[in-house]
């Protein structure tokens, strides 16, 4: 069974909150993620995401890092304050050695570099969700 299939199997039941401020990226990623998650929530910025997080029962969050208003790291910090266990994934274009250490302070579990590789995303989703199920 491929990683992607495994991920799909694991995640069908889960609710994902995907946060991205860039419209194009959001639309395409959403189309891809729809195949993994039946329950997919999409937010257009940090504030919007936090609102949706409060309103719904979310199992996993994938968020872009740089956004106006509330950025990805701040969002993660806020979410982590209310929920200690939820898996949080940050998407970013940065690739600096110190960066991974920095984001851990905000309670982020995983860090995925842009441009997103579907295979890697699937692996990550599998890794983060298999123990929830």
């Amino acid at each position, binding site marked *: 069974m491929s990683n992607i299939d495994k991920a799909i199997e694991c995640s069908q039941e889960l609710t994902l909150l995907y946060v991205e401020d*860039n419209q194009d*990226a959001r639309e*395409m*990623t959403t*189309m891809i993620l729809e*195949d993994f998650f039946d329950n997919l929530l999409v937010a257009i910025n940090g504030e919007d995401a936090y609102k949706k997080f409060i309103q719904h029962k979310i199992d996993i969050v994938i968020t872009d890092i*740089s956004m106006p208003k509330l950025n990805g790291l701040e969002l993660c910090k806020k979410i982590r304050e209310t929920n200690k266990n939820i898996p949080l994934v940050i998407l970013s*274009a940065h690739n600096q050695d110190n960066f991974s250490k920095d984001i851990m302070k905000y309670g982020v579990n995983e860090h995925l570099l842009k*441009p*997103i590789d579907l295979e890697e995303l699937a692996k990550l989703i599998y890794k983060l969700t298999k123990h929830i199920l």
Partner: protein
Amino acid sequence: MNKEIINTLLISFTLAILYFITGKFSLLFLHGCSIINMGIFAAEGIALGFILFFGKKVWTGIFIGQFFLAYSNDIPLLVSVGIAVTNSFEALLGYCLFKKFKLNLNLSTFRDIFYLIGIIIFIQLISASISNTLLLMSDVISIKEYLQSGFSWWFGNVMGQLLFTPFLLLTFINYKTIQWSEYFAYVFLFASIIYFLEIILEMKNLLLLLSISIPFIVFVVSYRGFAYGTAMSIVLALVSSYSVYLGHGVFHLNNKLDNIINYNLFILAHISMVFITGVLFEERKRNLLTLETKISFETNKNKEQQLLLLQQSRLAQMGELIAMIAHQWRQPLNNLSLANQLLISKYTKGKLDDKTVMTFKEHSQKQIKHMSKTIDDFRNFFKAEKKSQDFCVNDVISHILDITQNIYENHSIELNFVKMPKLYSHGYPNELGQAILNIINNAKDALIELDKEHKYIEIELLNRENTIYLLVKDNAGGIAEDIQEKIFDPYFSTKKDKNGTGLGLYMTKMIIDEKLHGKIYFYNTDEGVTFEIQLKELNNAT
């Protein structure tokens, strides 16, 4: 080769003629006294001047001139030959000593002058001794007259050389640079004054005469140079010799010898003044020249450094440009990658429908266009402008905001432009854009380092009394006092560890000062720093 020989012959012949004529003149001036006297013997000075300048090959001129001079004054043939040989030898000895001590022909140092005086005194001592011994042996003078005659010979010849040798050397050397009309004007004016005082006014007080003639000669030498002074000494000697001849003024004493002694000392006083002032003038000229060379050397070094700076700042700018394009391209590249993966993902799942393909097509096209536009924007922005032009300052700012906006968003920095009615200026808009960009980039770098909620950069545009005030404000904490004086210095950077070149603000200041003829200031505010750029406002912009 032939030409050289002809030249030498011509020079020697001229020297012989000059030697004979001036020698005759000196003797005539002494009223038919014998050849042994204290009169200034110009011929000797001319001989030494010629041999020092043209070389020892012209010695025959001295020999011939002296021989005919002596022989025509009723001195026996053999003695005349002896005196001619002695005088030629004396000049050659002077030449050799001059070379040995490596003296300069332009007599520009005290060493040159003092050594030359020493050489003259020495060679004339030898020459006077030998010549007078010859005269004694041939009974032209008696043993009683020997000492007196020897001294007179020596003194007269020394004076002749002190007066004429420097004059000839300096004239030969400087004849191309001397402004002859002015030169003759000074010499003629001096001669007229001396003539007026000595001959017409018959001034009897030597000290009064000196107090007029010496300041004049010192003034001209220190103002125009050594060569002028030597010429003035000669006209002084000529006019005064006429005065001695007439027995006028200061030279009115009954004893002719006393008059001649007074005359010689009077001339000597002027020669000493000319020598001292002349060397001082030359030294000053040399110092000025050294200073000028140093200045031009430093100026050139400075220019080279400026060029280097310019190249380095171009490189830094290029690095900046690449970094900015890279940053701008990240999002569209990511989106293209997503579109690609979307297509593949749908295809592998057998879900590739028309809608997906259309989405793929639209998004891909959009991203590619976006990337292409980014390149164009940056290329236009960094394009060097050859000509200054009228431009709208608001447009420059808007353009910067366009190309940098998403960098600032990524760092959660609010970049605002307080809109104003359009203001126009004249200069190089792209350069101004780069200057502003350097300032806001610095603000951005400072803000990124800070851990604070609300980070902003604000650009404000005002106009007052034909001046445009472009303010760039931030809330990044301001510039520390101890570095405030240095921020516009080249290579000064607080970000050396982060690839800061220290050229950004230096270039900014250069652009504002030199390309836009504006001014740039900065001051700390409560929250951060404000940079103020002042530009001339254009009123009749089209």
